[in-house]
């Protein structure tokens, strides 16, 4: 799985990526030197809690697909992969349109790998 993440990180604007379980346990990570694995996992996990609590309060049907945070100095993206989440940390100027294809491809490869 780490190879898939490392390949994804080669895309322009992507600083690092990781796979975590819904309760924030890291499955695999390929983050840059300035990103601590435990810290990113903890932050994304609390983010997921916030999103889920909001969806529960709003009694929103259906499932969460993705979440993209666009901040002044970077972006955090996470995507539901069934029983885990792919987290991508990007630079602020990352082109999301161009990155969607490699991200979707990475999700597909991770899911297939799991099945295999």
């Amino acid at each position, binding site marked *: 799985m780490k190879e898939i993440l490392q390949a994804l990180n080669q895309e322009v604007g992507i600083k690092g990526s990781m796979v975590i379980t819904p309760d924030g346990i890291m499955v695999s990570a390929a983050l840059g030197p300035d990103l601590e694995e435990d810290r990113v996992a903890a932050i994304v996990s609390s*983010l997921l809690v916030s999103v889920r609590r*909001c969806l529960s309060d709003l009694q929103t049907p259906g499932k969460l697909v993705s979440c993209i945070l666009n901040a002044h100095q970077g972006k955090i993206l996470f995507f539901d992969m069934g029983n885990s989440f792919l987290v991508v940390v990007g630079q602020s100027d990352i082109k999301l349109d161009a990155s969607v294809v490699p991200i979707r491809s990475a999700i597909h490869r991770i899911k297939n790998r799991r099945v295999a």
Partner: protein
Amino acid sequence: MFLAFLNPLRIANYFRLSVAMERYRKHPDQDETLAVARLLAKVGDRSGALSYLRNGRKRFPASPEIQQLYAKLWAQSAAAEIRSLERGWRSQPRVEDAARLVELHRSVRNFDVAIRTAEEAEAKFPDSWLLKLAVGKTLYHRFLVSRNAEDGKRAAEALRQARTIKSDCSRALVYLTALLAETGPRSDAIAAAEELARIAPHSTQAQSFRQKLTGASAASTAAPEAGPPAQTAADSDEELTSLLLAELRQIPEVCATIIFHPDGGPVRQHFVPNELFAAENCQQAVASLAAGLHGAAERMGIGRLNTCVVEGDPWWIYLAEVAGKSVVILARKGFKSSAFERLMNRFMTETVTL
């Protein structure tokens, strides 16, 4: 790393902040506003501090302490954003960044630097309405300070050019109306106000301009010494949020829009009964989500949150920071993410508070 969080001074500041916020909720007076803003700045949440001060400026316009602290924090915030935008401009020039740079220099009254920046950017993007608008606003504000007729003339020219390139640019008309109300001729100011009311029928500012100008026009016939209208375009963030809400109301896929202050206090909202989002506790739920998203961005070290898109099946939740407020849109799948981004980009680029 955890030692940083266990810093006793930091813990003490967070504790003091929670006490101050509780006191502010009970008595949102001038002293409590200042206390909360100072503590937010101490714990590193400058944008939160600015939001409290922005509200404070409206409620206590005569308070020099609030004005001074706001000016100090805004200058720091603008300087940081200017540095970041200048780096981006050097590596990948984008007209939106240039316009924002001009606006930021203008907001800290570096008028000459703002004009110079605009001239450099216009060499690369000669037909940008955003740059013309930014130049027009800069010259308008310099005119208000210096009362130099040449600035007024050049401001009007730049604002008219912005309108020529983008005929529905209501912001250019807001500034043009305010400028013409100051410089005259009054008939041109009235015509600009009428045009503004035509292209932005929901704009309360357009109605207000029209009333004041036509009222002042009638008064000036009876009493020639009547002065120019007092209204200017300087503080029109409220107007922007009204326009945004009016635009969103017209989109059938939008189920709800909630606008609130960073402390969770409601500003405005509209809700259309629907099967995707429950109305009960809606404002509280999205305010808590916004707080979570802001916290995550800050802890991650990626700076101030601009927008967030949560995609579900079959719905979207959008969050954006506009004019110091959080705007959350709950929508059906048909409302495209790109439409949201275009809408928010337009409002954010046009929004820099003085």
